[in-house]
């Protein structure tokens, strides 16, 4: 099997699992307990927190809160901050956020909040001027993702943070960094970002653990009330093995960053170039330089995405599609639509996302096999004249 869907989830690194195992077996104590048996889990959480602090470049470990997933981190940040600032009822976000964020804002909109959704250009880059024009004195929260999950395009969150603090200093800024963590360096300490969320399973920790970073002067209410855990801001007995896991994964991701930015990027570029060159109806949905190094999004004209995925799966390749048919939602990707990708390629857009475990031979295999698959699939299409035109343009 060739796994090229690392933006969906990743393989757990063996070294992460090793580190977790003792806490799934013998070291099962509740870290809040008073006896010596609880010392190891308590110390392990402390160590994991320090590792994540370093990974995100936070000023201190009190700014790190463990959660159950990226969606919980986002929900805590958004609802928690808005709860603390009820007089202001204006929010700015983007049209291309992840549903975990977007649907949370839709809910606030229903309850009377005013939400501005900033658009992107045809390359998936954020319209910064539009954002600047929307920022107001009564803006409670701005929320922009660090990198887009479908296109990999990186957004200038540091610049946005600076602008917010200079124009509307009371507005809070949340960054959904789920797709950036482990792919590009993050250093919150040097930025004016208030809150930032990540998810472990996107960088080789298991599913079921995330982190919310909140700058020390940021107030927010908990999403889950209860015990004193996470300084009273996220109740529930700590998920020790998974917290240990995300700590280890953060440490390993930090070490692997150089490799991501050079070698993973090289393989991504090879895959991208190879497909565009060898497949006549392939079209790069965005080629901007400022992308995370592992992601490419390619539209195959006049062929539907689910059909491509099924045929890729038949030769052992895992990828994903912004096609409506894969999700059952009937509507194709909101991200690609916001970019204005033409209908001819919109429904046939495929995301391929690599990881540090991707091998060059796997990339070569996909580049070699894809042309034949596409020849077969285009032969079924009713748009033969249009396809012929594409062939002749080559």
């Amino acid at each position, binding site marked *: 099997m060739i796994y090229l869907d690392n933006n969906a989830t990743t393989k757990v690194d063996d070294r992460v699992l090793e580190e977790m195992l003792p806490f799934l077996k013998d070291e099962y104590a509740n870290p809040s307990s008073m006896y010596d048996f609880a010392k190891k889990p308590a110390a392990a959480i402390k160590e994991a927190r320090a590792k994540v602090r370093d990974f995100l470049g936070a000023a201190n470990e009190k700014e790190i809160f463990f959660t159950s997933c990226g969606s919980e981190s986002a929900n805590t940040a958004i609802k928690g901050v808005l709860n603390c600032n009820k007089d202001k009822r204006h929010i700015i976000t983007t049209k291309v956020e992840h549903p975990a964020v977007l649907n949370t804002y839709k809910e606030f909109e229903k309850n009377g909040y005013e939400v501005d959704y900033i658009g992107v250009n045809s390359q998936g880059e954020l319209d910064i001027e539009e954002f600047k024009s929307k920022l107001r004195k009564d803006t409670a929260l701005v929320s922009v993702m660090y990198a887009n999950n479908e296109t990999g395009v990186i957004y200038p969150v540091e610049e946005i943070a600076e602008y917010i603090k200079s124009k509307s200093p009371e507005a809070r800024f949340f960054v959904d960094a789920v797709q950036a963590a482990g792919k590009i360096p993050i250093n919150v300490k040097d930025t004016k970002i208030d809150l930032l969320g990540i998810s472990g399973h996107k960088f080789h920790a298991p599913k079921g653990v995330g982190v919310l970073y909140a700058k020390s002067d940021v107030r927010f209410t908990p999403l889950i009330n209860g015990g004193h855990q996470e300084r009273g801001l996220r109740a529930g007995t700590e998920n020790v093995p998974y917290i240990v896991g995300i700590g280890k994964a953060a440490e390993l991701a930090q070490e692997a960053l150089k490799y991501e930015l050079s070698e993973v990027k090289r393989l991504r570029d090879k895959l991208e170039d190879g497909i565009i060159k060898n497949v006549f109806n392939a079209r790069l949905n965005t080629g901007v330089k400022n992308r995370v190094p592992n992601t490419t999004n390619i539209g195959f004209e006049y062929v539907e995405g689910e059909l491509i995925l099924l045929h890729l799966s038949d030769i052992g390749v895992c990828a994903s599609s912004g096609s409506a048919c894969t999700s059952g939602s*009937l509507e194709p990707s909101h991200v690609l639509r916001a970019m204005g990708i033409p209908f001819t390629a919109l429904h046939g857009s495929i995301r391929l996302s690599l990881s540090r475990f991707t091998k060059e031979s796997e990339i070569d295999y996909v580049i070699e096999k894809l042309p034949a698959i596409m020849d077969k699939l285009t032969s*079924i299409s*009713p748009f033969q004249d249009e396809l012929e035109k594409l062939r002749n343009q080559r």
Partner: protein
Amino acid sequence: MWEYSEKVLEHYRHPRNVGKIDDADLIGEAGSLACGDSLKLYLKLDGNVIKDAKFQTFGCGSAVASSSILTEMIIGKTLDEAKKITNKDIADELGGLPQEKMHCSVMGQEALEDALKKYYGENTLEEEIGVSHSGDKIVCTCFNVTENQIWEAIKINNLKTVEEVTNYTKAGGACGRCRGLIKDIIDTYYKKENAVQELTPTQKILKISKVIDQQISPQLQKDGGDIELIDVVGNRVQVKLTGVCSGCKNAAMTLKSFVESVLKDKVDANLEVEQV
């Protein structure tokens, strides 16, 4: 991941009768590129028998499988036999389709109908397949689905909810603005007892009051709140939330998503609820 039957897998992997018949006698089309799936069906006749059929499909695995199996189903059939084929027959022949994918089988039926229309003429065919609903205006503008298409899908597949209609026809699957209209079509089809009826103002108030007392109030009481009917002005139902509901930050949500939707469902789809 969809749970596709073995037959669907077989047909998307090895579709039968792919291509174009250059001297086709009948050609039928359904769907569009913008909507994410489209099908072109070519028929070659020998008298009134379908001698050959070919297809070209832009669509997902189940769309290709539906088109492919349809060609196998109609080759060798007389036109009279072919016109009796419904989307349900196509789905059954495939060993079933996931609910969300039923619209693929509908696309097959529509392309076949479109082709046969050119043989039988539009009106005759509508009588034959029993489309008795007058008028054919577009209900869902996102996917260009007409009232007749929805009516037919309800009839053939015994659809009861808006969600089912969306699964079978795509109508209402994008912006969602036509969901109210779809509900009206379903209600009209089943001549539902609670469908919009001409009530006198007094009857209307009595009915609203009864629904509030028997169905809405008990629900709110469970959460420690309650509701009081103040007045009904035209279609505006004026209420007051009491108990813990008053001052609750979710009160607006409760009013719209619960109180209003129950009243719309049970009394009149045109009602609007407002708090006074």
